[in-house]
C-alpha cells in the first residue's frame, strides 16, 4: 500500500534560517510525490511534485524538495524562511493501484517561523 510519513508534528525556525520539513514514503512501483501547503481556514495549495527526472524539484514560493530513492525520502526545503511561510504542510503520494485518482496525504507538519 502507498503511504507517506511526516515524523514531525511541528517545526520551529527563525526567520532567515533554512527550513526542512521531512517526509518519507512507502510505495510499490514508482513514487509520484507531492507537497501541499494549507494556510489557516483555507484549502490546500500545490507547492511542487516529483514524478521523474532531477532529484531536486523546485516549486512555488521558493520551496524545493529533494527526492532520495535510497532513503525513500522527499524532504521539503527552503534556504531562507519567512514569517509568512508559517502554515500546515502536507506530503502526499498518488495511489497507483487505483489509477492515480486517490491522493494519500501524510498527517501534516505545522511550520512556525519566528521573526
Amino acid at each position, binding site marked *: 500500500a502507498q503511504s507517506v510519513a511526516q515524523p514531525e508534528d511541528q517545526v520551529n525556525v527563525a526567520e532567515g534560517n533554512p527550513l526542512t520539513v521531512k517526509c518519507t514514503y512507502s510505495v510499490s512501483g514508482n513514487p*509520484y510525490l*507531492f507537497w*501541499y501547503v494549507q494556510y489557516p*481556514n*483555507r*484549502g*490546500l*495549495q*500545490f507547492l511542487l*511534485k516529483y*514524478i521523474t527526472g532531477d532529484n531536486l524539484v523546485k516549486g512555488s514560493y521558493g520551496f524545493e524538495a529533494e527526492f532520495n530513492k535510497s532513503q525513500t525520502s522527499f524532504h521539503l526545503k527552503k534556504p531562507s524562511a519567512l514569517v509568512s511561510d508559517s502554515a*500546515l504542510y*502536507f506530503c502526499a503520494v*498518488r495511489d*497507483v493501484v487505483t*489509477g*492515480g*485518482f*486517490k*491522493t494519500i*496525504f*501524510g*498527517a*501534516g507538519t*505545522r511550520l512556525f517561523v519566528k521573526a
Partner: protein
Amino acid sequence: DAMVIQNPRYQVTQFGKPVTLSCSQTLNHNVMYWYQQKSSQAPKLLFHYYDKDFNNEADTPDNFQSRRPNTSFCFLDIRSPGLGDAAMYLCATSYGTEPINEKLFFGSGTQLSVL
C-alpha cells in the same frame, strides 16, 4: 481567475438534519473530489467523479452521497449528520488525462458544525 469555489464557507446543521455542501469550478476539469479533514488532520478522500462516473471510497459511510449534475458543479449530501461528521469538507479538481501526476486544485473548504 479560474478557480474552485465552495459554498457556504461555514455551515451549521442539527444532529440528523440533512445538509448539502456545494462546489463549483471554472477550470473545466474532468475530475472532482470531496475530502473530509478533521482538526488539521490529513484530508481523507470520500469519493470522486471522473466526468459522470462516480467512484466511492470503500470506507466512506453510506451517510455521505454526492451528485454532479454537470461539469461545473458537484454536491456533497450528508443524509443524517452525526457529531462525528463535524469537519472541514474540501472540494478539489484535476484535469484527469494523466491523474497520477496531476496536481489538485482545492477550494477554500466548508467548515461544518453539527449541533
